[in-house]
């Protein structure tokens, strides 16, 4: 085999291999490889029971409440499609607020309540000064961008 043909073969092999690999990876990305579920999937029953996974979504405005004298916090999380109730006992991160994103690790109870061991605040990539945020809000644009948190339903 001439070196030229050898090189062509090598290029062809690399091309085919990388294509196959890319196809496989893309298929994998279509599926949920991260143990990360949104409220919609949970409600649909796609998430496992009795198995730790991560739940992501936005904290529903006005849903947060804490029993007086107790560390247990109850709040709801939404992906603008469905809503899941989360229960968490412990200290919440500073940036955890209603209307913001969060990621919780825990298990789904049989009654559909997600019992979290850990709650992390998730921030979006938008930065602006409080004044601007306020102004935007008044104009009716929510300051936080949903799309960063919620998986594309398609």
């Amino acid at each position, binding site marked *: *085999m*001439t*070196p030229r043909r*050898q090189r062509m073969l090598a290029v062809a092999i690399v091309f085919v291999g990388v294509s196959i690999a890319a196809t496989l990876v893309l298929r994998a990305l279509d599926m949920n490889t991260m143990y990360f579920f949104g409220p919609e999937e949970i409600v649909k029953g796609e998430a496992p029971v009795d198995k730790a996974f991560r739940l992501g979504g936005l904290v529903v405005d006005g849903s947060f409440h804490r029993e007086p004298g107790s560390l247990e916090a109850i709040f709801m999380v939404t992906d603008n499609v469905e809503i899941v109730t989360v229960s968490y006992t412990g200290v919440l991160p500073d940036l955890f607020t209603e209307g913001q994103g969060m990621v919780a690790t825990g298990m789904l109870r049989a009654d559909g309540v997600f019992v979290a061991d850990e709650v992390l605040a998730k921030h979006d990539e938008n930065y602006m000064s409080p004044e601007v945020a306020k102004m935007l809000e008044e104009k009716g644009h929510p300051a936080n961008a949903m799309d960063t948190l919620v998986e594309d339903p398609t």
Partner: protein
Amino acid sequence: MDTASYRLEWRELALWRGDRCLQQSLTGRLEAGQALTVRGPNGCGKTTLLRTLCGLSQPETGEILWQGVAVHRNRPDFYAHLAYAGHTNGLKGDLSTRENLRFAAILRGRHTNQNELLHGLRLTACADLPTRNLSAGQKRRAALARVLGSGAQLWVLDEPFTNLDAAGIEWLGKRFNHHLSLGGLLMIAAHQASQVEPDRETILELPGGDT
């Protein structure tokens, strides 16, 4: 075989080992039917020169041409004509001599008669033993058998005579001359006399030490 055209050339080679420059600029050529014996004190770069010409080491500068084409542009063609035996024997200790040789032969796409070679190198008795159990001389001879049976035009041998007895050296010399008479090329690094007919032989004396 069609032998007329084979030739190996090297131009302006600079050889380095680590931070040490072994040779500044070597230029030379080897034509069909010729032998080149490389000599020089220890550490002058004999082995490095051989390995560089085979493409195992890269020269700092300069180029190597096989039939006028740069070697690294046409490795398969060059290697199809090359057989090399370096300091290591290139034998798997767990395989027998016969198996080692068969592997080398099939890889080159040849089916030579091993028995004649083994007999000539006095390896018949131990041909089926794992080479691990052979003596240093026997291992050396087995490595030589690989080169001699390769059918390659260019033989590059680093210290082929070590661990051989007088009879072995003489026998090897005959094979060298036979190879050259068929138009083969031979390059060796050696301390001893190369056993090659003087009119076919060129001697390259490398200057030693710090250049």
